[in-house]
């Protein structure tokens, strides 16, 4: 992934920018920053959840990491987006959240309560 590669070369001033970018992402999940990570999840209604990811320029999220955390922030599931930029998992009991992790400043968090049929 080019994003991850770019991050590994990041110097200090960029770190600040990255933090700013992360803040912006948290504050406005759908704002139009070039290469914004995008992720949506759907409750399939059969005890499973489907997430699909991508980037705002239309590029694929295949191989991007995705984690499912419980209410105590413990990782209950970890995987990566498949070749169709999708990830399907069994819906955990209780509160949970999904973290689509395309590198620092390129993450999307979705609360389980926002994942509906």
């Amino acid at each position, binding site marked *: 992934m080019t994003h991850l590669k770019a991050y590994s070369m990041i110097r200090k001033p960029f770190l600040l920018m990255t933090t700013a970018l992360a803040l912006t992402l948290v504050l406005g999940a*759908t704002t*139009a920053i070039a290469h914004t990570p*995008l992720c*949506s999840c*759907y409750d399939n209604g059969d005890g499973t959840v489907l997430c699909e990811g991508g980037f705002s320029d*239309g590029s694929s999220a295949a191989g991007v990491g995705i984690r499912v955390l419980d209410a105590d922030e413990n990782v209950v599931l970890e995987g990566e987006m498949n070749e169709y930029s999708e990830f399907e998992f069994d819906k955990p009991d209780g509160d949970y959240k999904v973290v689509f992790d395309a590198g620092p400043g390129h993450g999307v968090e979705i609360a389980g309560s926002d994942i509906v049929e």
Partner: protein
Amino acid sequence: MKPTALLSAAAALTLASTAQAHFQLLYTPEVMLEKPGDIDLALVFGHPMENSHSMDMGQPEAFFVVFKGEKTDLTDSLEAVDWQGPGDEPADAYTATYKIRRNGDYLFGLVPVPYMEGAEDVYIQQITKTIVNKGAMPTGWNEPLGLPTEIVPMNKPYQVFAGSTFTGQLLSEGEPAAGVECEIEYINSEIDLEADSFSKEILGPVPSTAIVAITDDNGLFTFGIPRPGVWGFACLGSGPDKEYEGKELSQDAVLWINATALE
């Protein structure tokens, strides 16, 4: 009568007929969706900028959506309705509901049956496109649908800003169509999808003559969007079919875009 008065009188007569263009509507209120849900669509043949009478539509030849290259026929979802214009008799129109779930671009296409325009003694067939996005993920809004004639957007059609420009490329049988006149209008009324009607009141001014752009050698046209709203482009007679049931046919390409204020 003073010459200027004569001029104005002549102008008024001419203007009355030119500012009124036919537009096939393929309307849905929200074109940028964040969450899955059902969207309502209205298929009405009218004069949206003047907000004058609507024409009767026949059963469409084709109505479909293309999502990530996959085409789904939607003709079975069409419901015939009486569409109420600002004052006159209701017109035959159609509505439909479509469930949008996954992220990406949904390209809706409509091929109406040709309409006999008695005043001009020609048939008009406006092949129409409207593009809806879910989840901000672009997946091909600028891909042609392979229609006989169509306008391919060169700017994201669901997110145009008032004061910016919009560029489209007119295709006829997949090739750029040069030197074609495209009429430009905006929907100048509130659309009530519960009551299947246009509001009586208009929302903004009606220019004194038709707004027009001519396509260049590459079939491209550009228009500066002066105000927020739903804007339509109708390129006239660009389709390959020139005759229908022994009469002249104007096979047109229509595209709708949504412009908002960048505030």
